[in-house]
C-alpha cells in the first residue's frame, strides 16, 4: 500500500482539528469563519482521500461529487455570514424596531 | 532529440519559477516584487508550456495549453496593474 492516502488522511484530520480549535479560540466573525472554512477543507480532503484508490486506479467519483457540493455550500454560507456581519457594522441608520417586524 | 529539448525547456521554466519566488521574497519593495512575480512567472509558465507542447503531438491539446498561457498573461498583467495602482494610491495618501 502506498503512503499517499495515509499522509493526506493525517493532513485532513489535522486540518479539521486546527479549524475546530480556531473556531473555539477566536471570537471575531471573520477569523471564526476562516477557521470553519479550514475545518471544512479538512473534512472535504478526507472524502477525497477516501476516493483515492492508488496511482493508476480510477478514483471513486461519488466522494468527488459530494465534495463539490460541500464546497459550494461552504462558500454560500460564508457569504451569508459575512453579509450579516457587515449588517452589524453598519451605523445605526435605521430606527431599531422594538417589535421584531417592521410596521410602516 | 525532441524529448531532450522539451526537458531542457521545462527545466528552465522551473528554474524561472524558483528565481521568481526568490525574487518575491528578497526584493525590497512591492513594485520590484510584482516585476519578479509577473515577468518571471509568465516566462516560466511559457517555457513549461513550450516543453509540454513539444512532448505531446496532439495539436488541439497544444492550442489549449497556449490559450491557457495567454489567459494567464492577460490576467496577471491585470492583477499586477491593479496591485501597483493600489500601492501607488496608498503611497500618495
Amino acid at each position, binding site marked *: 500500500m502506498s503512503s499517499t492516502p495515509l499522509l493526506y488522511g493525517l493532513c485532513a484530520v489535522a486540518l*479539521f482539528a486546527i479549524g*475546530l480549535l480556531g*473556531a473555539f479560540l477566536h471570537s471575531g*466573525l471573520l477569523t*471564526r*469563519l476562516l477557521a*470553519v472554512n479550514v*475545518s*471544512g477543507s479538512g*473534512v472535504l480532503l*478526507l*472524502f477525497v482521500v*477516501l476516493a483515492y484508490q492508488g496511482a493508476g486506479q480510477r478514483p*471513486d467519483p*461519488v*466522494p468527488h461529487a*459530494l465534495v463539490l*457540493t*460541500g464546497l459550494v*455550500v461552504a462558500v*454560500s*454560507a460564508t457569504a*451569508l*455570514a459575512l453579509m*450579516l*456581519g457587515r*449588517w*452589524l457594522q453598519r451605523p445605526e441608520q435605521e430606527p*431599531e*424596531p*422594538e*417589535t*421584531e*417586524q*417592521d*410596521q*410602516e | 532529440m525532441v524529448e531532450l529539448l522539451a526537458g531542457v525547456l521545462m527545466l528552465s521554466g522551473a528554474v524561472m519559477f524558483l528565481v521568481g519566488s526568490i525574487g518575491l521574497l528578497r526584493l525590497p519593495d512591492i513594485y520590484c516584487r510584482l516585476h519578479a512575480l509577473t515577468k518571471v512567472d509568465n516566462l516560466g509558465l511559457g517555457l513549461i508550456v513550450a516543453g509540454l507542447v513539444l512532448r505531446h503531438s496532439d495539436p488541439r491539446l497544444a492550442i489549449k495549453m497556449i490559450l491557457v498561457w495567454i489567459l494567464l498573461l492577460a490576467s496577471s498583467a491585470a492583477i499586477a496593474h491593479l496591485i501597483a495602482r493600489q500601492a501607488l494610491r496608498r503611497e500618495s495618501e
Partner: protein
Amino acid sequence: MTNLLVWPVLLSLAAALGTLIAPSNAARIATVAAALSLWSVLLLLSAVIAEGPQWLILGGWPQGLGIALHADPLSALFLLMSAAVCLAATIFARRYVEHSRYRSQFWPLWLLLQTAIYALLLAADLFNIYVTLELLGLSAVTLSALGGSRAAVQAAVNYLILGLLGSLLFLAGIALIYGRYASLDLQLLARVVEPGPSLWVAMALMTAGLVLKSALFPLHFWLPAVHANAPAPVSAVLSALVVKVAFYLIMRLWLDLFNPAVMSTAADLFGVFGALAIVWGSWQAMFTARLKLLAAYSSIAQLGYLFLFLSLVLVMPEGEDRQLLLGALVLFALSHGFAKSALFLAAGTVQQYAGHDRIAELRGVAGQLPLTFFSLGLAGVALIGLPPSGSFLAKWQLLSTTLLAGQWYWVAVVVVGSLMACVYMFRVLSVAFGEEGVATQRIHSRREELPTLALAVTATLILGLGGVWVWRVLDVGAAGGLG
C-alpha cells in the same frame, strides 16, 4: 415505489419559485402550497398505514446509487405535525408580514424552510441529510435575521456559525462511515454496520453535531436569542419544528443505524443532560421578562423531556413496553410542536397588539385578546402536561415506565419540571387576566387569532383525546424500522 414521497418537498420548492417570480401573489401561493403539502402528507400517511413503510429511489436507479426517500409511521407522524404547523403559521404570517419591507424575500425563504423540513424527514441517505440540514440551517438563519433588529441579526450570526460547526461534525461522521462501508444509503448501511472504532467515532461526531443543532443543554446557549428575536411565525416554526427535526434525526440514527453500537452509558448521558435541560430551561422561563424568551426557554426544557424519553427508549429491550414508550415520545413531540407554535403565534399577536412582549406590562391584555389568551392557556395546558393534553398521556406513560423500573429520580425530574412549567405559564396568565387594561393600539380582527387557536386545540384536545391513535399508527411499523 411511489412518487407520493417527493410531493411535500416538490410542492414547497415549486411554490418558493412561484413566490420568487410573482411576489404580488406570494402570500396566496404560499398558503395554497402549505395546504397542498398537508394534503399530500395525509395521503402519504394513509399509504403508510395501509401498506406499511414507503420507499422511493429517485431517478429510478438501483438502491445505493440513487438517493432514497423513506416514510414510515414515525416520519409520517412528524411530517403531519410539520405540515399542519406550517399551514397555520403560513396563514398567520400573511397578516404578520403584510407590511414588512422584506416580504418579497420572506415568502420564498419561508417555503424553502418548509422544503428543508419535509426533505429532512423523508431523507434516507446520509449525504442527502447533510444537504437538507444545510438548507434548513441557512434558511432558518436568514429568516430569523429578517427580524431586522440588531439583536436578531447578532443572534442569527451566532446561530449560523454554530450551525455550520454542527454540520461539519455531522459531515466528518459521514466521511468515516463512507470510508468503512462505502455506502450512504441508510437501509443498506443498517444491514452492514457493526460495532467498532469507525461506527463509534462516527456516531459521536454525528450526534455531537445534531445535539448542537437541537439545542440540548449545555449546547442550548444560541437558541433563546434566535427564537426570541425572529419574526413570530418564524419563531413558531423554529421552536416547534426546526430543533425537533434535528432531534428526530438523532432518534432515527440511534434507533435504526447505530443500534448495534448503542451503549447504556451513552444513552444515560442523553437522560442526564435532558434532565438538566428540563430544570435549567424551566428555571430561566420562570424569571425571564419577555414572553417570547419565556417560550424559547420553555422549548429548551421541553427538548430535555424528549432526550429523557429517548434515553429510556434506547436501553429498553425490543418489545411492547419499548413501543409504548416510543409512542409516548412521539405524542409528546407532537403535542409540544403544536403547543409551542401556538404559544409563539400568541406572543406575536400580543407583540403586535401591545407593541411589546414584556410580561410585567401585559396587565389586562387578555380582556382585549380573549381568543389569543384562551389559546395561550390551552397551549399552557399542553406544555405543563395537564389532562386532557397529549403531553399528559405521554408523561403518564413516562412516569409509569420509570416507576416500574424503580428509576424514581426521573420521576422527580418530571414532577419538578411540570411544577415549574405551571409557575411560568400561570405567571403570564395571571398578569394578562389582571384588571386594568393597557391602551389598545389598533382594531383587531378575530380571524388573525384562528390559526393560533387551531394549533392550541390540536395540542390539548385533539392529541389528548386521540392520543391512542398515535400508538396505533406507530404499531403499523413496529416490525419494521429501516432494516
